[in-house]
């Protein structure tokens, strides 16, 4: 067994603004199957965090159960982590976020974890606009239990088992748009040039950012007849726009032609530049996003890219009007201000 990742790294590995190399964002060696799309998504997360110069201890990664939910072990070893019960990651994330709003919350889930057992949790996290990135590593099957079709498998798709899937797929992206999600994107594990800026934009978005990432299961769901195989996805890939994420205060070096380009400014000053590929689509218009999505579905396309963003998103803490400081830093005298304060409050009701 030669499954040891050497400790040596490239001696000239560049460092980011806070002095970390990409290697500082790595995790343990993956135990998933070689070629699993999930590993590519892990690598994209590492790349995004490195590029954003995130301090690893300022990020919490949360997951449920499944191949997807194993991945937080394989990235960001120096960050906080919580591996929840199957499908219950959104509750944990909501609670953690309530207690400490200063961390970046990165939820990792799968199609089983989100679209089946955890559906009830998933929709409420969207409804509450919990400030987190929610990545669904979507392979259309239960890889951990030998590849049975999951709720996101398309009608007619054939996995390694050989039989066609008879039930319609739950489209998490369409559902999130319907539920009022404030940031909705879809991507493909095999396309890091799109996925990395999407993750960066999602991390900068205040509120719930859903990234549905099609991630082929090489072992059980990579037949040419499967709609979630490398070949099929590549052949049917359509993008709303090419996307470039420019963090706050960074100089804009790329020039964007007039016309089909759009800029979305986020609350922290960072900007998403979009070079639109789809006509009649506006990233800040939910109606056009739903239309474009349905249109793609009818044509059998896998529509990727940023689908919708609400630049005026108000996340859970704003809706709840909580204090600006993380609750876990409030001391007893601040939480129990005493008799005098209580009487003042009571007096206001009289």
């Amino acid at each position, binding site marked *: 067994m030669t499954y040891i*990742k050497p400790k*040596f790294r*490239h001696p*000239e*590995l560049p460092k980011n603004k806070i002095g970390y190399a990409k290697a500082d964002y790595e995790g343990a*060696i993956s135990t998933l199957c070689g*070629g699993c799309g999930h590993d*590519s998504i892990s690598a994209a997360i590492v790349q995004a965090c490195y590029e954003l110069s995130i301090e690893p201890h300022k990020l919490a990664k949360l997951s449920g159960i499944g191949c997807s939910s194993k991945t937080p072990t394989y990235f960001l070893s120096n960050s906080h982590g919580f591996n929840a019960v199957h499908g219950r990651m959104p509750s944990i994330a909501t609670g953690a976020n309530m207690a400490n709003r200063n961390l970046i919350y990165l939820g990792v889930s799968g199609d089983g974890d989100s679209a089946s057992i955890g559906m009830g949790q998933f929709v409420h996290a969207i409804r509450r606009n919990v400030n987190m990135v929610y990545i669904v590593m979507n392979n259309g099957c239960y890889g951990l239990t030998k590849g049975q079709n999951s709720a996101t498998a398309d009608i007619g798709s054939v996995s390694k088992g050989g039989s066609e899937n008879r039930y319609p797929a739950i489209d998490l992206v369409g559902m999130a748009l319907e539920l009022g999600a404030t940031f909705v994107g879809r991507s493909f594990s095999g396309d*890091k040039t799109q996925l990395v800026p999407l993750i960066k934009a999602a991390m900068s978005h205040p509120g719930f950012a859903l990234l549905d990432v099609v991630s082929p299961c*090489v072992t059980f769901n990579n037949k040419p007849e499967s709609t979630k195989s490398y070949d099929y996805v590549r052949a049917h890939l359509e993008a709303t726009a090419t996307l470039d994420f420019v963090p706050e205060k960074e100089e804009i070096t790329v020039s964007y032609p007039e016309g089909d380009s759009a800029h979305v400014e986020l609350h922290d000053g960072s900007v998403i530049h979009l070079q639109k590929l789809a006509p009649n689509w506006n990233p800040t218009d939910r109606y056009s996003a739903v239309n474009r999505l349905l249109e793609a579905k009818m044509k059998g396309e896998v529509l990727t890219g940023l689908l919708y963003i609400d630049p005026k998103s108000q996340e859970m803490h704003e809706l709840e009007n909580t204090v600006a400081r993380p609750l876990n830093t409030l001391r007893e005298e601040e939480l129990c201000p005493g008799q005098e304060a209580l009487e003042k409050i009571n007096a206001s009701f009289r």
Partner: protein
Amino acid sequence: MKPTNIQDPEYFHKVVDCQYACPAHTPVPEYIRLIAAERYTEAYMVNWESNVFPGILGRTCDRPCEPACRRGRIEEEPVAICRLKRVAADNKEEVRHLMPAIPEKKNGRKIALIGGGPASLTVARDLAPLGYEIHLYDEWDKGGGMMRTQIPAFRLPESVLDEEVDYILDMGIHTHFNNYVESMKEVLEKDYDAIFVGTGAPKGRDLNLPGRQEAGPRIHIGIEWLASVAFGHTTRIGKKVIILGGGNTAMDCCRTSRRLGGEDVKVVVRSPFKDMKASPWEIEDAQREDIPILNNMPPKKFVVENGKLKGIIFGKVAAIYDENGKRSLIPTGEPDVFIEADDVIIAIGQDNAFPWIERDLGIKFGKWDLPVVDKTTFQSTLDRVFFGGDAAFGPENVITAVAHGHQAAVSIDLFCRGESVYNRPAPYTNLVSQKMGIHEWSYDSPVVVDQRYLVPHAEKKVALSNRKVEVELGFDRPTGFKEAQRCLNCDVQTVFNTSRCIECDACMDICPTSCITFTTNGEEDGLRARLLAPANNTEQDLYVSENLPTGRVMVKDEDVCLHCGLCAERCPTAAWDMQKYLYQVTKATPIWNISEQSTI
């Protein structure tokens, strides 16, 4: 960039940095793995096939392989390749029965070898198994050439030297020792089918400064003095000794002086310490024996009183470099320094000398009175005369002489068979998958983080009391194993099959040293800049695939690849495979076929 042609035998050869840097192209990782497997005899034979003198070179080689070692690019120190070679030599069992048989019936061709050093001995070894009648001439009473006369016994024990020289002489070589060849014309008049000249660079440089003539016998020429010590003619030296020069000969002279009665031995070099030509380990060994090295001090004159040497007056200089890096030594204006000496040894270089080759024989001589020799065939302008070793292109080292010997032997064999000497055989190559099963390779793919191991030395007091006590003791077997495990197995190549790749990025994501990138193709300069990690070492190639279905290509920077096999391990379609590449320089006759006899 165009897709890399891995059919070119030199492409993967270049990836094996140590082997590529070795003049004789010894398959280094192959024998290091054999050492780790405690198969010392086979490890020895892999060496013997290629470099002919494993025991000798395992102690004295100039080690061009070590600065090239990939390990030195990912951490501080390369693998101790040279010392591992010695582990093979020290621990081998009987090897004579593995060496080629010498035919009783000769092929009717006679070859003369002038000089009994490494180049001539290599020619003898490569040609004797083919039935050539070989006559070897040397001025000394034993074979070995400069390996015997210039390398002190405390670095190379006589027994080791005798053993490896005898393996060759016992192949039925007709030796003519104590026989200084004085005339090439006479040799040509004898009935030799071909003549090989391997007479080295036997003339030590002198230093004609004021007082040189008067000082007389207390000033010695380095290589001549070392030879005289080696043959027991010189057994003593004065208490105070100055060595002039900063090369390996100077290091051997100063350390030998310490063993012959020199108590206050100093090495004085005219240039800065860092520009010294001696190998770093030889400088260290000298310093360990309490020999100071004074730098930036050119000698001005020998001080002689009443016909007796008193010492040397040195000036003081500083090295100034111009914008092209050219050095000039400028006097600093400080007062001159007088250093006392009973003896002075001049070790400032050596030259070729061919007073015995008449200039009207058709053998042309060119610059610096060196013969005109073809760089590939080692043939001179007289077709049956060949040159090799230091005699061909000036002073180099033992391993270069061996490399020349192999090529000259190929030429001589072709020449004697009436074929063109340019019709040279291609190298022997082999590329074989090392996959044994899931997570299982036939080589130790995990990369150990161990630092280079130190080699033990004999106790200084004992070593200095006798010039024949070997100083470096070599690795014991357990340390040899640990050092061998530091080898990155660079000969186990990452071979990419474009048609199998599904572009899942698994290899790119797992590669610990970020060597692999999938990107759009382009010109080399641009491509090097936009890989995952910058590919700034332009001496190392980029391995570029054919176009993939998405229009991208796979680009692998060979520079710091650890050959850990994780790319192949994670590849779901076996588009990557780890395949062992064997490259053997073709000899005049097969000596030891590695892939048949010792595969590991």
